[in-house]
C-alpha cells in the first residue's frame, strides 16, 4: 500500500475527478442508485488497501462496485455499514419531462442488454475507458471487448430507434 499521504491524495483526486461519474456508471449498470454510492466507497477502500493499485482505477472501481451490488442482491442482504452519503440525485422537474422520458428509455435499453454488453457499454461510454483499458480491466482480449461493444451499440441503437417509432 502507498504511504498515507500519497493514499490520501489519491483518494481525494478520485473523489474530485471520478467519484460522481463512477457512481453514475454503477447506478446505470445496476439500476440501483441506493447501493451504488456505498459500493463505490467499498471498492475505493478495496483498491487502495491493496499493495498494488490497479492501472485504471476508475474502471476497476466500477467493475468491483458492480460486483458488490450483484453480490448483495444474491444474498439479499441489508445495509450493515454506515456510509457517508455525498451523492444527491436530482429529481427531474416538469420542464425536464421529455428528457426524463428519454432517460427512462435509455435505462431500459441498457437494462435489456446482456451482462457483458452492458458492462462494456458502461465502461466505454460512461466511464470513458478505451477498448484496451476495458480489456485490461476485465482481463479479456481487445477483440472480445470490440465484439461486445459492437453488439451493445447495435442493440441500443435498434432499441432506441424502436422507442421513437
Amino acid at each position, binding site marked *: *500500500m502507498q504511504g*498515507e499521504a500519497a*493514499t*490520501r491524495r489519491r483518494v*481525494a483526486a478520485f473523489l474530485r475527478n471520478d467519484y*460522481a461519474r463512477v*457512481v*453514475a456508471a454503477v447506478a446505470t449498470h*445496476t439500476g440501483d442508485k*441506493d*447501493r451504488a454510492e456505498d*459500493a463505490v*466507497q*467499498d471498492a*475505493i*477502500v478495496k483498491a*487502495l*488497501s*491493496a*499493495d498494488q493499485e*490497479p492501472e485504471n482505477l476508475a474502471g476497476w472501481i466500477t*467493475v*468491483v462496485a458492480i*460486483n*458488490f*451490488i*450483484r*453480490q*448483495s*442482491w*444474491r444474498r*439479499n*442482504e441489508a*445495509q*450493515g*455499514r454506515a456510509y457517508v452519503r455525498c*451523492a*444527491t440525485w*436530482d429529481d427531474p422537474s416538469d420542464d425536464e419531462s421529455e428528457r426524463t422520458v*428519454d432517460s427512462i428509455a*435509455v435505462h431500459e435499453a*441498457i*437494462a*435489456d442488454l*446482456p*451482462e*457483458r454488453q452492458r458492462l462494456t457499454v458502461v465502461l466505454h461510454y*460512461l466511464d470513458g475507458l478505451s477498448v484496451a483499458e476495458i*480489456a485490461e*480491466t*476485465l*482481463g*479479456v*482480449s481487445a*477483440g472480445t471487448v*470490440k465484439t461486445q461493444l459492437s453488439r451493445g451499440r447495435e442493440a*441500443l441503437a435498434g432499441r*432506441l*430507434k424502436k422507442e*421513437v417509432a
Partner: protein
Amino acid sequence: MARDGMSDEDLRDLLRSAAEEPRVEGEDELLDVLMARIVTDGGADVADAPEPPSFLSAIPGTGAGTVATADARSASKVTALGARGRRGRVAGAAGIGIAGWVAIGIGSAAAAATAGALITGVPFFGGGEDPTPAPTPSIERADAAGQDQDASDVTGAITAPHASPDTDASQQNGAPDASGGSGVSQDSGDTPGGGTEGNSGGDLGGGLVGGVVEGADELVDEVVDDVDDLLPDGPVKDLVSPVIHSVDLSGLTGTLLCGDTAQVNVVASDAVGVEDVSLNLSILSVISTDISLDHAGGDTWTGTLAPLSLLDLGGLLAPLVNVTVVAEDAAGNSTTAQESLALSLFDCG
C-alpha cells in the same frame, strides 16, 4: 434525440445524458472516512471482496434494482458458462476444444449449451485452491496479419495482476463475502463457497428449464467469447509438418531402364494426416517426371513410374537419377526428401 443513423458520439452523448451524475457534497468527510477504512483498518472490511473482473465473475442478481430481473436473467446465463474465473477459463480450453467447438461447428445451440455445462462442471475453484495463475496456453497464431491484440491480451486473461498477496481463493472466485453494506464482509468463513456455488450446475438451471435451452443464441455467444478470450485472433492452424520415414526406390534400379514400369514406395506420417505425396524424378536436369503417389493404407504411399528410354538418359550408360519426394498435409505443411541413385543398363537381366 438524434437516434437515426446514431453515431458513436451520439450514443455516448445520449448515454451520458441519461446517466445523470449525482451532485456530490461533503467530500472532506467522505475522504476522512475512507482514509480511516484504508489506513487504520487496512481495508479489512473489504478484504474478501471480489477481485475484478469481470464478465466471468458475474453473480446472478435476484433482488433490488430496476434491472434486477433482467440482471438475473442474463447473469444466470453468464454464470452458467462463464463464472468460473480466469483459471477456469484456461482449464476449460480443453473442454471447448472437444465439445464446444463441435457444438458451434454444427450450429447446435443445445449442444453448445451442453458444452458449456460440461465446462462449468469442471471443479475449477475448490475452497483452498492455489491462487497461482495458470500458465499461458501455448497456441500459435495462424493469421498474424489479422491479429489485433498483443501477448498481454492473452496473458491478461489468465493472470491476476491486481491480486494482492493476501488474495485468497475466494477472491479468485469472484465471490465476495457479504454480510453488510454493499455485499462486503469481514467474515471470510463462507467465502470459498460463493464462487463455487455460483459456478455449479444449479446456476445452469437458469438457462435450462425442463430440458429446453432458453436464450440459446446468447449461450452460444458466451461460449464463443470465452474461446475468444483464450485463443489469439485467427484460426488455430496445424503447424506440424509431415515426416517422411522412408523412400523405397529399389524398383527403379532393376526395371526402369529395361522397359518395365517401376514402383516406388514412400512411408510418411503427420500429426493430423498426410494429404498428398508426390515424387519428382529428374535426370541430368533434362528429364523431369512428376507423379502423384496413391495412398496404399496406413502411412504407405505408392506410385508407378513409366519406363525410361535410352534417349532419356542422354546417352549415358549409368546416369544419376535424382528423386524428390514431397509429403504435404491438409494445412499445407510439407516435407521434402531427396534420394539419388545411379541406374545402369547392365542391371537389365
